[in-house]
């Protein structure tokens, strides 16, 4: 049996999670205060994912940048490929919260969406 200790990143409480993996890959999670902890622990042991947030350049906006995020979490090992894909990208103002800035990044089915409003100047 394999044991792992993780800190939950689901919320700021940061529960210490104890994970027990048996031979048949059954996962038992303890130490979590809520369901998020269990989901996170199982995911972290099987397919760890993260939400990625960054900024891209804006043309003709009141601000030089717009903040964006993945609208769903993406596999952890794709974070840097995702950032590379967005390098050099610029978008035209006006931009609204939720606007899709980049569709289906790296074929993951995940879109990059704007997280702030940028008015035209």
């Amino acid at each position: 049996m394999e044991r792992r200790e993780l800190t939950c990143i689901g919320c700021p409480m940061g529960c210490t999670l104890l994970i027990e993996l048996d031979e048949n890959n059954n996962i038992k999670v303890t130490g979590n205060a809520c369901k998020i902890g269990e989901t996170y622990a199982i995911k972290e042991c099987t397919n760890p994912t993260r939400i990625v947030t960054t900024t891209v350049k804006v043309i003709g906006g009141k601000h030089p940048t717009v903040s964006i995020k993945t609208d769903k979490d993406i596999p952890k090992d794709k974070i840097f490929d995702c950032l590379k894909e967005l390098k050099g990208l610029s978008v035209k103002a006006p931009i609204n919260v939720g606007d899709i800035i980049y569709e289906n990044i790296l074929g993951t089915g995940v879109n990059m969406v704007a997280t702030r409003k940028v008015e035209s100047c």
Partner: protein
Amino acid sequence: MNYDLVIIGGGPAGLAAAVAAKEEGIDNLIILEREEELGGILNQCIHNGFGLHTFKEELTGPEYAQRFIDKVNELSIEYKLDTMVLDITEDKTIYAINPKEGLLEIHAKAIILAMGCRERPRGALTIPGTRCSGIMTAGAAQKFVNMKNYMPGKEVVVLGSGDIGLIMARRMTFEGAKVKAVVELLPYSSGLKRNIVQCLDDYNIPLKLSHTVVNIHGKERLEGVTIAKVDGNRKPIKETEEYIPCDTLLLSVGLIPENELSRKVGVELSPVTGGAVVDNHFQTSVEGIFSCGNVLHVHDLVDNVTLESYSAGKNASKYLKGQLRKGETIKLKATDGVRYTVPHFINPSTIEKDITVRFRVGDVFKGAAIAVYFDDTKVLNKKKRILAPGEMEEVKLASDLFSQYPGVKTITLKVERS
């Protein structure tokens, strides 16, 4: 200009306080904001993790701010941007300035202080070495990268492990910089655990606890820093010195509530929090002046700022309606590991519902409990697997406790080891 309520600061605290007051029927109110847009520091906090409690979803800073900005607009709450408050007098006259209208004189019946906090700068630390460029607070770097599209450097060391420092270690990594180390003087991090995991561990950035920067090298531009391990008295150990080449040093060494205005108007401040001393209505020592958010005490979570400021906004409207009664107050005492409490005292004559007492501990405690005493009687024992200075805690005092223990003089909060 005359207003019933003036809110100073249009960040998360000011926005929530304004929304709450308006919802309570205070129509003649205004928010004064120094920056060119509402939202405060949230605008540059592009990472996710905001709003889990308030909205039951994980938002980024700008999205969280936008929800409240939308609410302010929906409720037609007046605000002035680019407007810097210069002075407040005891009769609640506010002097402010902006480029369009010049000097403003505003008379208020009540004021909510919601100015937030500021980062401790290099000058507040005693690091020897030259005054080369490349040294800035983590928040300044955050503004450069996220708002202005400038990268402050390529090889980075972060001093201090506050949340902004941790967030910026990841952010700089995302933008192609090499973050060589996060150096923390204390044996534990002052940041949230989840940020250590998802900002440092995820990217193999070393966190050097019980270490500090002892020298800064470089003439025009930073060339490197010398770090060293510290002993139990936080004194650097010479033999452990290590040189790290870098062109950028980010400081994440604490936040200070920005209370210059509060001080001017004679609001009593707590030496522990750097914020106002308040009662359970968030009223300061000056009648009709309230305080909430990071200007009151530094929070870890914006959700808590929102809750607290909502309450402050509601109470300010009660004050304006003449519903806050004066009376004997009960002192809250923080001792044995509890560093401070907010509120600092309770006015029992106006208790309607449970009172949330927020506090921080001064050390890391494992398997301990938070005990609450009404005078000498223990009324609450809250077991905690772990207590750390980096995580704000709270206890709820049920309203019937106050009827059960009439005449209580002091409420004491302490850490008890089981």
